[in-house]
């Protein structure tokens, strides 16, 4: 999470809330669940991670760097000219990305296509697709949901970042999504709901998903947008802005936002004594 804040501050633009909220899920994926080789990103037997809501890519970059895909120092090139770390992820730019995404709603169908092709070839690799909840407004998602259910793509696990916010406000005001579990179950998916910040729950849910036969799996990960940074948590206004870019009543002044955010993360919101810089 500190990497995320540092790279966003350096970039001067980008999304804060979603990446912070999904840090635990990504960490679980890249440090426990995935079969992958960071030093050999095109390893033909690797599991596939499709990031549908490309705007939270800072968290993926941070976790990939820490996993060894590329130097951590490269994170500071985010969104800069010539960087492999594009503002929204591009497969052809950075080894280890499986798709190019940003425009919302098309990741799940790409993941479905991968899962189907792998099954045709009798390959045992697994496909993970990460989606935001706001992007569930997109019709393309539900086309893919039908397709996944029809084809019983049981080599596919989709994870929804259920943080309840999108750019214009709370998801249930912008375009209500509930009853989310019932909707996916009606489309033929096995659904689990977890605390997206509980490492054990994330890992258990991913392994349980692999044991489900005859259905694709969906994990609704309930997360806190802006997780770890007190003034950002739960606030949709921090969806698309990095620290230091906007004055919000009650939040630290612009000039202090980055420092406060990093302090919050280092001290777990002040709960750990003796912060060391």
């Amino acid at each position: 999470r500190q990497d995320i804040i540092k790279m966003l501050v350096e970039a001067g633009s980008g999304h804060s809330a979603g990446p912070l909220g999904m840090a635990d899920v990504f960490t679980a994926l890249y440090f426990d669940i995935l079969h992958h080789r960071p030093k050999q990103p095109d390893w033909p037997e690797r599991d596939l991670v499709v990031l549908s809501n490309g705007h939270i890519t800072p968290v993926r970059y941070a976790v990939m760097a820490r996993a060894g895909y590329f130097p951590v120092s490269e994170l500071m090139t985010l969104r800069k000219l010539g960087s492999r770390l594009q503002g929204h992820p591009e497969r052809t730019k950075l080894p280890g990305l499986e798709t190019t995404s940003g425009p919302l709603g098309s990741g799940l169908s790409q993941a479905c296509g991968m899962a189907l092709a792998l099954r045709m070839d009798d390959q045992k690799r697994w496909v993970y697709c990460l989606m935001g909840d706001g992007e569930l407004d997109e019709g393309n998602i539900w086309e893919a949901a039908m397709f996944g259910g029809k084809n019983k793509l049981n080599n596919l696990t989709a994870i929804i970042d259920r943080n309840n916010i999108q750019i214009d406000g709370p998801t249930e005001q912008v375009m209500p999504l509930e009853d989310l579990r019932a909707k996916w179950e009606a489309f033929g998916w096995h659904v689990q709901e977890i605390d997206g910040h509980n490492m054990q729950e994330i890992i258990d849910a991913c392994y349980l998903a692999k044991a489900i036969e005859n259905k694709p799996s969906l994990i609704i990960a309930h997360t806190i947008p802006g997780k770890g940074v007190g003034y950002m948590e739960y606030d949709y206004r921090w969806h698309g802005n990095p620290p230091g870019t906007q004055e919000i009543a009650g939040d630290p002044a612009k000039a202090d936002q980055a420092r406060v955010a990093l302090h919050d993360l280092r001290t777990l919101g002040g709960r750990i004594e003796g912060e060391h810089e």
Partner: protein
Amino acid sequence: MSKKLNLNPKLYDKDVEQEPTRAGFGRGLLAAGKRDNRVVALCADLTVSTKMDLFAKEFPERFVEIGVAEQNLVTVASGMAHMGKVPFVSSYAAFSPGRNWEQIRTTICLNEANVKIVGSHAGVSVGPDGATHQMLEDIALMRVLPNMRVVVPCDAIEAEKATQTLAAIDGAAYLRLAREKTPIITTTATPFELGKAQIFRDGKDLTIVACGPMVYQALIAADQLAKVKIDVEVINCPVVKPLDWVAILASAKRTGAVMTVEEGQINGGLGGAVAELLGEHYPVPLIRVGMADRFGESGAPDELLEHFGLTAPHIVKHAHELVKRKGGND
């Protein structure tokens, strides 16, 4: 008529055989599927009318029914391509690439996915279904995308070859097909090469660059114009992108006047492509025949082609005008 291209000797006969270009695609896809087991086919609930049924019957395990979901159609294909498949996706052009342009842009072109998009029932010749189903903007929509190739076969035989050629290359392509039967212009011995236009008929007074079944109308017009001593060069330009600018510029330099003929919007279509080329490199009098910033309507295919000025007599009229303009410029 060009001898070395081995065109159909019965081309100018009244009883020239006819077949829709989509039928050639169906055969080409089947052949490609036999040659390469990476080829898969995906369809959005139009398997028979896009002629994907030949492939689907022979290779049911490599055929994917998507349902009426064109966004899903191209994105599932993108995912399959990433796993090494060579997907062909078909629907009516009005829906794919009509509806799913952004998915094509992001997940196929920017993502460099090896997906072939097949849009059937393009143009006003779809007929009675009316303007909603008469796709006219597809060439423009696809041509503007980086990494995309655009192919508009002039007859079923060329469509069959184009399909097999596209299956063999690594990269995105759009193949535009028509619903109606149209005359067979080429033979199996006529060459087809991506990025190459062909001079079907030599001439010195003006150049017609045409694509799709309109090539036949251009050839008929050229035949009639020869009788009044107007010598027309007819270029078949099935590959709108990458455009064979060498051939088109060379011809424009020889004749000094160019007409484009297509069954789609001239803005952004083949007419747009040729106008850009000539405007930048060799401006000559130009007339673009096609749909001029308007929609079609219901009617019989032949009626509509006549109504919208897409037949040989209209081309003849424009040719006279073009020759006159060319003279004025000399």
